[in-house]
């Protein structure tokens, strides 16, 4: 309570220093920088949200109102009839069950493909990362190479393959195709994740007497829930949105939702029902949209992980 305090409380002026700014530097709310950043963000969001707005608005209008041509105007009279029609009664070719059948087809395609592809790919990745078996690098290179082959090249050979297996045109055939095509990217995803798990953990488990499956189920699996969520997101959105494989490898009874949507929108007979088309499109997009919103942060990680694909 002597020199130290007097030193600390000595007025600034007496040391010959000019009193001036003190504490944190103040920040201005409206600076050119902020205006530029938020202005750009606003413009881009409008650019992307406007089509969605038009879709929603149009899907809630009746046909007479649409014919007026004011596509940006909100509906005068809100009607949910186009939504009902798109789901239940819209016609594609001969059948008039709407999108509902496609929806259930897609569900029945997506669930086995997602489960199967992730189950296999995670074991692949685990084996590649932790059990460096002979030829592991060659195997991995071949697998990754698969990710770069254009799908078109393989379309027809796979048709023959599925035909020989007797599952061409079935939901199982399409699920198998999705499982196979998901393999390179998912294996890469899991392998990269498992290589970040400390090797010593794996060694400790081996000393503790756990085998290949013991380590996978008891050590690795409980540690890697985030990457499983990422994989599930990638697979669900990817498989749900797939159109090419759906149209090539299935028959009209088992068309997935995307193919059926196309058939509804592109049917050339009669009047173009824009409101039904808009509603059908939104319904089809709801599943991925729901996944995006629910998963949020994890989805961004999924994209970042997918970016490795190049």
């Amino acid at each position: 309570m002597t020199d130290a305090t007097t030193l600390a409380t000595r007025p600034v002026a007496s040391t010959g220093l000019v009193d001036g700014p003190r504490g944190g530097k103040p920040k201005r709310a409206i600076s050119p920088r902020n205006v530029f950043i938020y202005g750009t963000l606003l413009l881009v969001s409008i650019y992307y949200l406007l089509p969605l707005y038009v879709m929603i608005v149009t899907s809630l209008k009746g046909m007479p109102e649409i014919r007026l041509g004011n596509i940006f105007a909100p509906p005068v009279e809100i009607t949910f009839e186009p939504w009902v029609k798109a789901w239940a009664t819209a016609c594609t070719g001969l059948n008039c069950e709407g999108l509902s059948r496609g929806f259930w087809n897609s569900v029945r395609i997506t669930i086995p493909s997602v489960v199967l592809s992730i189950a296999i790919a995670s074991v692949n990745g685990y084996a590649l990362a932790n059990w460096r078996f002979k030829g592991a690098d060659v195997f991995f290179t071949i697998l990754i190479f698969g990710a770069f082959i254009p799908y078109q090249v393989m379309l027809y050979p796979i048709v023959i393959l599925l035909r020989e297996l007797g599952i061409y045109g079935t939901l199982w055939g399409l699920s198998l195709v999705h499982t196979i095509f998901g393999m390179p990217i998912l294996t890469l995803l899991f392998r990269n994740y498992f290589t970040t798990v400390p090797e010593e953990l794996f060694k400790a488990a081996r000393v503790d007497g756990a085998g290949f499956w013991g380590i996978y189920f008891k050590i690795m699996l409980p540690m890697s829930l985030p990457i499983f969520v990422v994989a599930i997101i990638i697979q669900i959105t990817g498989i749900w949105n797939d159109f090419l494989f759906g149209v090539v490898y299935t028959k009209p009874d088992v068309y997935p939702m995307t193919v059926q949507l196309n058939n509804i929108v592109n049917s050339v007979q009669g009047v173009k029902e824009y409101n039904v088309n808009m509603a059908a499109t939104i319904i089809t997009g709801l599943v991925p949209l729901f996944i995006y919103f629910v998963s949020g942060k994890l989805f961004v990680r999924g994209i970042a992980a997918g970016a490795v694909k190049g």
Partner: protein
Amino acid sequence: MTSVSIRDLTLKFGSLEVLKSLNIDIDEGEFLVLLGPSGCGKSTLLNCIAGLLDISDGQIFIGGNNVTWTEPSERGIGMVFQSYALYPQMSVEGNLAFGLKNARMPKHEIASRIARAAEVLQIEPLLQRKPAQLSGGQRQRVAIGRALVRDVDVFLFDEPLSNLDAKLRAELRVEIKRLHHRLKNTMVYVTHDQIEALTLADRIAIMRNGIIQQLDTPHEIYNRPVNLYVAGFMGSPGMNFIEGEISGAGDSDFNFASTQIPLARYPFAQADRPNHAIFGIRPEHVSCGTAASDEPFSTDVEIEVVEPMGADTLVWAVLDGKEFRFRVDGQSPLHAGQSIRIGFDPAKASIFDARSELRL
């Protein structure tokens, strides 16, 4: 009775020979430290003993059994890792029980073993916690416990204290030593920290490039290093090395620049001596001031830098044109620029052949 025997152990990664025909016998209850710089193969050797790496050639025996092809879990070893390697999703109890469950041990036996290990390591209050809720020292204790519950003959430690701060490291070091006194298991301990090696080991194996340079008691390794590498590696600050010539056959001298050090008291291992040699003396074997004049050899040096380190002070000086370090009491009033008399007993020195770098 040997506990661990290694015969002609060779490990190659492709064309790279990591371990070169190693032979070690470790006695039952012995504490062996594998010491060396990073990349010398000490951790690799430990992994080979544990069975985590497939060896290219040779044999490994543990407790009299040839375990060369045996799975890690069946070798009768427990291993403690540098990064603790605790299973993050399991509680401490789950971590301890994991190995026992894999061995399909009855529940009551698992419980009693965990209770005993927890008591020995004083981790009883932590049993229900997750590893993330533990401090570094506690984690390492649990990691040791995981080896302990398996009731193995041989403990393998892979740099277990390197991730801890200095204070905790010193505490756990003593605890490991205590544990060894209490359990009397064979322990093989890998470290790059020579203090850990010197304090813990019954014997130290100093490794370099996959070859054991010297395998001996800490005392021998410190005082009679077999070659220049071991001499330079052990001791901090390191030994002073001076290159020069040996003259005369009987009571010879070591000459460099204009200085002559009498070697009459030096215990040469063999009679014939090369001309060119390296003279090594540890900084702590040098005395200064009035005590220096009583030593068999004394001379004046110019002080360049003084490094006070609390308990003692390291002095960097120039001895006839060569850099020369010596250690004095922490209270010493020496300062840079001063000239002072230093001296030492050549019997405490180590002399190496300049060409083969082996001890003379």
